[in-house]
């Protein structure tokens, strides 16, 4: 059977195709067509021959089948030690098998591989820390996702997500106009409470260029306002770009490497256009991974670095608190026990755990660590795109159990989660399991707790409707 109308090997690159796919509610027709989608085995094998080099081949070959990765995997643990959740098994029976068969696999095999790649691994990379040989199954699953995507075997939501990036340059349909309007609106809306508040768009040579997650302007515009207020409070000379502001990458979750490159290119172009001293990304884990850690490689930058210093929001907050640009009112420090979620994407994979702890030392009287934590923390349960895939919702809800139990063990009712994916997962686990917790980004906490210098307060006599 040839390729389907909706489910095929061609990426979404027009608004029309995107709308057609979106209209297929829940991907009913899409998944139906997938059951008949042919595997282009010749192309699959030639892609593998071109892209699977010694690192991956050696990982697959020397895996001693010792099973030490089992306990490292939160999905193995929360699925009652199901042996089919052992990372070595998961990768050997999918990518390993495709390579052993030289790409000669059928439709059923690919659909099973898809289920493994998107519902049995969140690419958290924790197993790599427990393998004596240093085999990182998460990296291999990410590679497998790319292979599956190129063959059309990708969950419906992620085909759409990657398509959004290709069509709108953002994970949601936020146009340049929408974005700039949101900035103006938020500056105006909060101008009364914060006199002089600005969201400068396309200011050249600023100290800071701020990039964010499309769902902030789309669904939580107050988050954009909060970022502006905190930069305003800290007295920063900052800007946002009119294009290239979207830092996230659903295409990374989908394995659409070309779309990943296109998105990062927009951000890097805006850096080169506006020449900021440095760039700060929002409280998002995968956006940081995509734009700061992996992005330079998608763009073919030999030094592996973005065109300007590019830091995560938590690095800026830690610095602002350290240098006194932001001051916390001691009376407003958090009195109740509070815990912190370490995002895999910027803690395990970028070493930023010390900054979030530095921040907590300013904010909380009773900060309690989850166990394990920092580099060794477990995934929130919804990483790598898992949160967004309807077909795997049941499996995702089981995956939340690990985080639920970690949070319960701290005795805290408040979880600071400076990452959109973690934040969503923790919200969902509360909805699903009702453990009576609250969860928050850093920005709203900081705004409530910061000392506002007199000159930034609204002047009584100027108050007008």
């Amino acid at each position, binding site marked *: 059977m040839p390729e389907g109308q909706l489910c095929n090997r061609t990426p979404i690159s027009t608004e029309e195709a995107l709308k057609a796919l979106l209209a297929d509610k829940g991907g009913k027709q899409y998944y139906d067509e997938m059951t008949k989608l042919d595997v282009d085995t010749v192309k699959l094998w030639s892609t593998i021959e071109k*892209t699977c*080099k*010694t*690192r991956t*081949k*050696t*990982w697959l*070959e*020397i*895996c*001693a*089948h*010792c*099973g*030490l990765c*089992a*306990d*490292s995997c939160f999905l*193995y643990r929360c699925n009652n*030690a199901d*042996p*089919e959740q*052992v990372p*070595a*098994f998961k990768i*050997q029976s999918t990518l390993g098998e495709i390579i052993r068969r030289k790409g000669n696999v059928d439709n059923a095999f690919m659909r099973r591989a898809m289920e493994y790649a998107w519902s049995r691994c969140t690419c958290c990379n924790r197993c*790599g*820390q*427990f*393998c*004596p*040989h*240093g*085999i*990182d199954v998460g990296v291999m699953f990410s590679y497998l996702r790319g292979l599956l995507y190129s063959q059309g075997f990708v969950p419906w939501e992620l085909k759409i997500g990657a398509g959004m990036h290709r069509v709108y340059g953002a994970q949601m349909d936020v146009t340049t106009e929408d974005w700039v309007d949101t900035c103006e609106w938020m500056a105006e809306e909060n101008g009364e409470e914060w006199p002089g508040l600005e969201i400068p768009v396309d200011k050249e040579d600023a100290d800071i260029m701020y990039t964010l997650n499309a769902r902030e302007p789309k669904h939580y515009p107050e988050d954009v306002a909060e970022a502006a207020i905190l930069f305003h409070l800290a007295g920063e000379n900052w800007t946002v770009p009119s294009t290239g502001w979207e830092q996230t990458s659903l295409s990374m979750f989908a394995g659409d490497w070309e779309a990943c490159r296109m998105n990062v290119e927009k951000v890097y172009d805006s850096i080169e256009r506006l020449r900021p001293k440095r760039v700060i990304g929002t409280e998002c884990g995968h956006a940081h991974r995509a734009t700061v*850690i*992996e992005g*330079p*490689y998608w763009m*073919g930058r*030999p*030094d*592996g*670095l973005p065109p300007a210093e590019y830091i995560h929001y938590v690095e800026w907050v830690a610095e602002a608190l350290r240098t006194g640009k932001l001051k916390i009112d001691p009376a407003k420090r958090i009195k109740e026990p509070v815990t912190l979620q370490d995002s895999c994407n910027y803690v*395990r*994979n*970028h*070493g*930023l*755990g*010390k900054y979030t702890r530095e921040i907590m030392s300013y904010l909380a009287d009773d900060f309690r660590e989850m166990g394990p934590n920092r*580099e*060794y923390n477990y995934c929130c349960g919804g990483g790598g795109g898992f949160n967004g895939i309807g077909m795997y919702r049941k499996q995702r809800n089981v995956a939340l159990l690990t985080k639920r139990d970690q949070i319960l063990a701290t005795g805290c009712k408040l979880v600071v989660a400076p990452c959109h994916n973690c934040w969503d997962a923790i919200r969902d686990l509360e909805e699903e399991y009702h453990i009576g917790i609250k969860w928050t980004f850093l920005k709203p906490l900081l705004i409530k707790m910061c000392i506002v210098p007199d000159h930034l307060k609204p002047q009584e006599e100027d108050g007008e409707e």
Partner: protein
Amino acid sequence: MESLMSFLTGPGLIISLAVFFIGLAVRLVLYFMGLDWRLDRVAYKPHMSEGMRGGLYSAYKWLVPFGTFGWRAQPFFTICFFLLHLGAVLVPLFLTAHNEILRMRFGFGLPSLPQGVTDVLTVATIIGLFFIILRRIALTEVRIITTAYDYFIIALVAVPFVSGFIARVSSAGSDGWLLVHIISGELMLVLAPFTKLSHIVLYFASRWQLGADYSIKRGGHRRGPCFPW
């Protein structure tokens, strides 16, 4: 018998050692030649010093019993692993009898460990192997990934150790065991570069790579000199 023995300890030994060392060296070179900064997404060359530091530390740290978070999480396996590997590395290299043969045949040998020490190490290796096999059978998470090939590799290592030890402790008529020991030992040398035993060198390569990856790309200086394995 006499001529077979002299072949095995002469040309046979030279061939096996040559295949072993050259084969493993080739595997190592091919590994590093096959690293690709774009595909691996690790800028090895521009950050070589950070990479070396992180890579070497990562290889070293996992050679220390209970030296890593991972080893500490699995005490039983860690003990079996080090019992097995300590003997598997030290006994072939520093056994008096091996070095006597080397000196007799080639006029040079390595220093030798006292017989008592190599005896203990050999027994430790065999015990380690025994429990590793047991673990493979007993634990579902290991059983599911175990293949016949895994047992073949275990046998490839176990036979020379067990036969060598029997030959060593039996007072008389141990020629048969000695023959088994030499043949299986040389078979292990010859097959090492082509099987999972290539981890003898590829362990260092793969561990270096992940350590370098963490130091160059995944955090590097932000968490101190190296990833805290």
